[in-house]
């Protein structure tokens, strides 16, 4: 009985392969994009974790030389012999051809387990003897290995756990390669320390202990980027589910009479539902697998761009290659199954409750009443009220996301009403029988199309919203870079003495050498960087001030006031004139608030004299150099060669900006790709709806043909209909997208990162998007329209035939 019934149920799909294709394609596309985004995010997070975990710096405190220089190895031995469980690390960069390799030298025997990237001792592809003895080993990522292929390095061992651009080697090798025999950069403190120890100050004076950061700065910084990706992934998935919902709903509707027959022939209702669920499960698994595979391809395609963006934006190293994480792919499959059932639940429910003897009403699904549209509109209004409430009373990131969700859902739900009103208006203003029929008939198609149109609306709104956010971010960020990077060169010494030498060398050769000295301390309960600056036209003219007192620079220069960055101000609700207590009890009023993007921490700026007086231990390593822009490059080269400085000691402003710009373009490449994919899914949703509806349309269109409309005329009207619907949807998407962008910029960003970005609008982008949507709508109805045009009279006549 079951096999027979199942075959009967499945025969439907056999006869409607296009519908089946739509269902599977929709589901697999949705799963694909969702899994791709998850995979990318997961890969990125794993990369950050690896980078952050590099020799334990995310978890274990380290000892550094107080003067910022190397530690002598003898200090290490004497600490060990005083009972301190520390492990030596030497880090530095070395150039191999085009590769700037960060070399990390470790001692595998003393390295705490928490800091172990490669298990040299227990094997891990090598052995202790090979690791220690000449020529040693480099543990590198696959990516680094291929970059280093032709270089004269020690033998390479590829391990997954090392971030790109880094080589882990024995400390002895590192000392030789980095030209620092007997020197260490730092010592990792093991979490297990013996019961008996000589006090640190006595055992090894001149060391400072630095705690690991409370959270990974990298993941914090890149969160906004991943937020975008996640939002897109989720949206695409939701849009995909619209397709599934409409395809499944239609298939259930079309098979009503079959269900009834099966029931009449003795198949229990429960078994019918079971069989239908089995059918859905099969589709979900098949499409889920395909989707996961496609997602892998999409992710692999996008990942290099993502990696470039993240590297440039945040200095986050990300492998350009994707690993198959079972968790992500398994989750993709599960999501596909859940999504399918969520979309099919209504159908299953109806099949379960269907009365045995009700007349077949194949058009009932398409003829959903206006009442339902009104109910949806009421729900939409309630959601909007809820969104308002969230906006006014909600706090935190969760509230921000809830706001986004309610806003989007409300927009989607109110769309059918808007479309209906627009069509009614069309009916009122149009004369002529054909036009009147056109509007009223379109109105009647609405329930069948509204899901697809909602999907289109969501895709468009997301495109507008995220697009506006990214573009606003870009504009703001570039403008801010211009202001913030006002000086031509930025130099940093490795220790105070070197920085001083640089300063002294630069002073006679440049217009100004401005100190960027800083210290870290707790302000208002948070770790905050405190910078000291000297009074200079550079700041007065260019500093990216959001709010300031009229005489702000005089006040700051006189040591009577301070500047706070936006993050600090927002978190503590600081206003101009509020007093801020600095570490050590010094209190100053806020004279200005400046924007500070890409930095999650609070920042305070005071006069440099004040910094030196309050915090004599402040680091004095960095300077900004003003010089005629044309001479900047030469000066940088001269400085490097005069003082024998590494490349990174001197950075020129132009190259930072150029790099930033390039990165932004790459970032947009990813965003654009996701935009296209999401729109593609929405297009598919429309195509699915039109194709499935077109089968039922013939009966409605045949009388028109009989009354003297030509088939091309009717097909043209069908095309026009989809364009009109898409046009209204585009118009509705613009305010919704702007709302979305505003929430992202003014709510989510503030909650997540502590800064608020101004919203810029890009009408030309909307126009492009609108045209694209019309194109999509036109294309999606093209196939049904062509089919209609080519329909043989015999097929139309069948509508009128007796036998029908």
């Amino acid at each position, binding site marked *: 009985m079951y096999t027979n019934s199942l075959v009967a149920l499945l025969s439907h799909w056999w006869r409607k392969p296009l519908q089946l294709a739509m269902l599977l394609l929709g589901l697999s596309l949705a799963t694909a994009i969702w899994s791709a985004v998850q995979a990318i995010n997961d890969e990125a997070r794993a990369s950050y974790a690896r980078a952050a975990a590099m020799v334990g710096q995310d978890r274990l405190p380290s000892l550094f030389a107080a003067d910022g220089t190397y530690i002598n190895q003898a200090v290490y031995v004497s600490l060990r012999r005083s009972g301190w469980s520390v492990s030596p690390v030497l880090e530095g960069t070395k150039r191999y051809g085009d590769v700037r390799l960060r070399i990390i030298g470790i001692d595998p025997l003393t390295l705490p387990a928490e800091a172990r990237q490669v298990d040299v001792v227990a094997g891990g592809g090598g052995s202790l003897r090979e690791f220690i003895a000449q020529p040693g080993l480099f543990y590198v990522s696959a990516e680094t290995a291929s970059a280093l292929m032709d270089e004269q390095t020690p033998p390479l061992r590829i391990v997954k756990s090392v971030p790109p651009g880094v080589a882990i080697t024995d400390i002895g090798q590192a000392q030789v390669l980095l030209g620092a025999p007997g020197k260490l950069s730092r010592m990792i403190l093991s979490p297990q320390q013996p019961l008996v120890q000589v006090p640190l100050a006595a055992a090894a004076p001149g060391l400072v202990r630095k705690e690991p950061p409370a959270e990974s700065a990298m993941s914090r910084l890149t969160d906004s980027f991943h937020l975008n990706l996640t939002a897109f992934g989720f949206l695409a998935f939701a849009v995909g589910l619209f397709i599934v919902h409409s395809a499944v709903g239609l298939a259930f509707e079309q098979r009503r009479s079959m269900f009834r027959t099966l029931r009449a022939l003795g198949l229990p209702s429960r078994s019918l539902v079971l069989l239908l669920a089995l059918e859905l499960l099969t589709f979900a698994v098949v499409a889920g697998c395909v989707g996961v595979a496609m997602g892998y391809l999409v992710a692999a395609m996008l990942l290099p761009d993502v990696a470039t963006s993240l590297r440039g934006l945040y200095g986050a190293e990300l492998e350009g290659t994707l690993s198959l994480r079972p968790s992500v792919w398994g989750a993709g499959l599960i999501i596909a199954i859940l999504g399918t059932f969520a979309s099919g639940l209504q159908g299953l429910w109806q099949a379960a409750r269907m009365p045995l003897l009700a007349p077949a009403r194949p058009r009932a699904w398409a*003829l959903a009443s206006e009442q339902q549209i009104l109910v949806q509109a009421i729900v939409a209004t309630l959601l909007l009220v809820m969104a308002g409430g969230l906006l006014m009373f909600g706090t935190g990131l969760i509230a921000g996301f809830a706001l986004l969700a309610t806003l989007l859902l409300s927009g989607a739900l109110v769309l059918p009403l808007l479309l209906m009103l627009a069509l009614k208006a069309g009916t009122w203003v149009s004369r*002529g*029988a*054909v036009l*009147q*029929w056109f509007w*009223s*008939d379109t*109105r*009647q198609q609405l329930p069948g199309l509204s899901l697809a149109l909602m999907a289109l609306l969501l895709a468009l709104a997301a495109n507008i919203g995220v697009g506006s956010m990214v573009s606003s971010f870009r504009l703001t960020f570039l403008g801010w870079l211009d202001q913030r990077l006002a000086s031509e060169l930025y130099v940093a010494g490795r220790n105070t003495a070197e920085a001083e030498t640089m300063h002294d060398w630069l002073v006679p050769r440049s217009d100004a050498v401005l100190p960027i000295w800083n210290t870290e301390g707790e302000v208002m309960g948070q770790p905050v960087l405190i910078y000291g600056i000297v009074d200079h036209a550079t700041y007065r003219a260019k500093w990216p001030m959001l709010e300031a007192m009229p005489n702000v620079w005089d006040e700051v220069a006189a040591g009577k006031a301070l500047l706070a960055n936006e993050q600090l101000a927002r978190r503590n609700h600081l206003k101009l004139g509020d007093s801020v207590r600095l570490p050590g009890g010094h209190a100053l009023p806020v004279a200005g608030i400046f924007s500070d993007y890409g930095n999650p921490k609070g920042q305070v700026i005071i006069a440099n004299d004040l910094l030196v007086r309050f915090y004599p231990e402040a680091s004095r390593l960095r300077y900004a150099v003003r010089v005629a822009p044309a001479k900047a490059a030469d000066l940088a080269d001269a400085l490097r060669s005069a003082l024998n400085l590494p490349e990174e000691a001197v950075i020129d402003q132009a190259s930072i900006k150029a790099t930033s710009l390039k990165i932004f373009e790459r970032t947009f490449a990813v965003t654009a790709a996701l935009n296209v994919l999401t729109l593609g899914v929405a297009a598919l949703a429309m195509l699915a709806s039109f194709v499935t509806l077109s089968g039922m349309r013939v009966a*409605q269109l*045949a*009388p*028109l*043909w*009989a*009354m*003297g*409309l*030509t*088939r*091309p*005329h009717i097909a043209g009207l069908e095309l026009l209909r989809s364009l009109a619907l898409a046009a209204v949807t585009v118009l509705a998407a613009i305010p919704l997208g702007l709302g979305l962008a505003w929430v992202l910029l003014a709510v989510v960003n503030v909650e997540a990162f502590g800064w608020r970005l101004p919203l810029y609008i890009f009408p030309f982008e909307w126009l492009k998007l609108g045209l694209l949507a019309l194109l999509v709508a036109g294309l999606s109805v093209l196939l049904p329209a062509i089919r209609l045009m080519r329909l043989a*009279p*015999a097929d*139309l*006549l069948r*509508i*009128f*035939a*007796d036998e*029908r």
Partner: protein
Amino acid sequence: MLLAVSNVTKSYATGEGKLQVLKGVSFSLEAGGSLALTGESGSGKSTLLHLVAGLDSPDAGEIVIEGKNIVGLGDAQLAALRRQSVGLVFQQYNLIPSLDVAANLAFHSRLAGRDDADLRAMLTERLGLTGLLDRYPEQLSGGQQQRVAIGRTLAARPKLILADEPTGNLDEATGDSVLGLMLQLVAKTGAALLMVTHSERLAARLGSRIHLRAGQLV
């Protein structure tokens, strides 16, 4: 002659080969005249009606309407013919579901560009549709829908009215009165009525009568 059909043949390809539906049918109908077309199920009545309406083309033969042979006309010309000269009353009514009764009644006449509000008002009254103008087809009974379909055709004042069992869903009294209305209008406007029917009684009320059997007139 308003309509002259001569030697029309038509066959359809079926699973078992070619099925000859019409085997050389000839007849004519004058303006103001009415003709009943009777025959068994499957004798080719509907096919003949569809050919005359320009919905389909014969394999051979001529169909001349108002002196013009419509065989071989293009899609657009046939559409114009259906819009301007021919009015079809379908057995299944084929009203437009998205339009209310008033709009359905006016639809064909507006397509033809000769909407006459007075005529429509008269038809509405005579067909007993007065209280139903703002209803939608799905809210009507079969008989009501059939009357709307007839009204739609009559309102367009076509030269040639083609009707397929137009009163099949009406009770005898209503059917008689509706047929009377149709005949009255045909006579008054100089149009012609070709009506497919099973009913001997109705056929007898028309001017003349032809009978189809297995694709041939007998």
